[in-house]
């Protein structure tokens, strides 16, 4: 059902965005290793949820249609950029916006949303 598909895509976007913002912010936190270990677990949990929703969106083992991928990418980028820029505007230092595109591509590939042919 189209309605369900949109619902799962929405959930997927929310969870990937959270995981990406988390990953980029984690790099801005100068913390001790044990804290990183703990937070890696949190990211995995958030990303695991995204994986569950990905498995409900067809085609499961192939890349989604180009139009859908672009739409998902744009929506994720908008959410992630807004979240990070909001922090920068409040005086948060050390956030690298350059990481956004690379991290989005990495996550989309991991979820088999986008499989680029060489």
């Amino acid at each position, binding site marked *: 059902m189209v309605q369900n598909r949109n619902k799962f895509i929405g959930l997927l976007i929310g969870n990937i965005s*959270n995981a990406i913002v988390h990953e980029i912010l984690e790099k801005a*936190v100068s*913390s001790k290793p*044990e804290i990183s*270990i703990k937070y890696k677990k949190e990211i995995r949990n958030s990303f695991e949820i995204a994986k569950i929703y990905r498995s409900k969106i067809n085609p499961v083992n192939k890349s989604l249609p180009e139009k859908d991928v672009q739409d998902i990418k744009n929506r994720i980028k908008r959410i992630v950029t807004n979240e990070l820029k909001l*922090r920068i505007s*409040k*005086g948060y230092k050390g956030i690298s916006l350059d990481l956004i595109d690379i991290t989005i591509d990495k996550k989309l590939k991991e979820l088999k949303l986008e499989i680029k042919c060489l």
Partner: protein
Amino acid sequence: MEIIGKISKGTNMDQIYISKQRDGMPIGEYVLIKPITIDEKIKIEEKKKQKYYFYGVKEIEPIKLKIIKEIFNVISKINDKIDNVIITGSFLDEGFKFNDIDILIMSNSNIDHSIINNRLKNLTGVKTHLIILTNKELLAGISTDPLYQSMLSKCVSMRRIIYNIDNKVYRINYKLLDLQLLKSKIVLDSFDYLNGAEVYYYLYNLISIYLFLKNKRITKSEVENKIKNLFGDKDKIKSKIIDKKEFLREYKVIYHELFSVIMDNIRKENGSKQK
């Protein structure tokens, strides 16, 4: 009635301390002191070894207790330089709805994660999540991160946990709190897509941070009470039988309040670093 005590060294006289909460042996009564046998001594040592400390755990299933004992045994056999082992997380909640067993190992020496993880997985068949840290790091964690306080409010440890937080030494790590708070944002973005249990999980996280920033104790019951006061019955939230508009309004107010406090403090931290 018999009491087993240990002779301790005094200035003029040595002594044996006995508990004031005892049936019999009132003050002024003469008692006979005699050494215990080797067998009795072994039994006492064994008992001491098997004594674990329960914090915030009222009841626990016997099978889980058996697993905990095995975990303590395995870890202490692998490495004798371990100061303490603490079991925490959803494993200690009633029932069997846990994903893994969270284990904190306190030690100043280098410990190989993989050896312990493999041994424990073979033994229990359950995935374990190890966090190895020193006493100093734990203390810093408790002082700066609500997750640590929440973890230690309900746990079972091999040895007694003693910590004294010095607010002058440790400062809250607001960037880590921001990461924690971020998890709860998903409720504002995708409330309709989440089930009741997920909404409750993120709400619990939000309120833990709320209490932490207000310097309140973070125990399961404290967090649950606050949730009840602000959002109503836990079961209704978990079943999502709530007024969505009202719930989200309250949630949003708290989220933004916390976000502002955290951002203000990050800005101050950055400012003080620049000076």
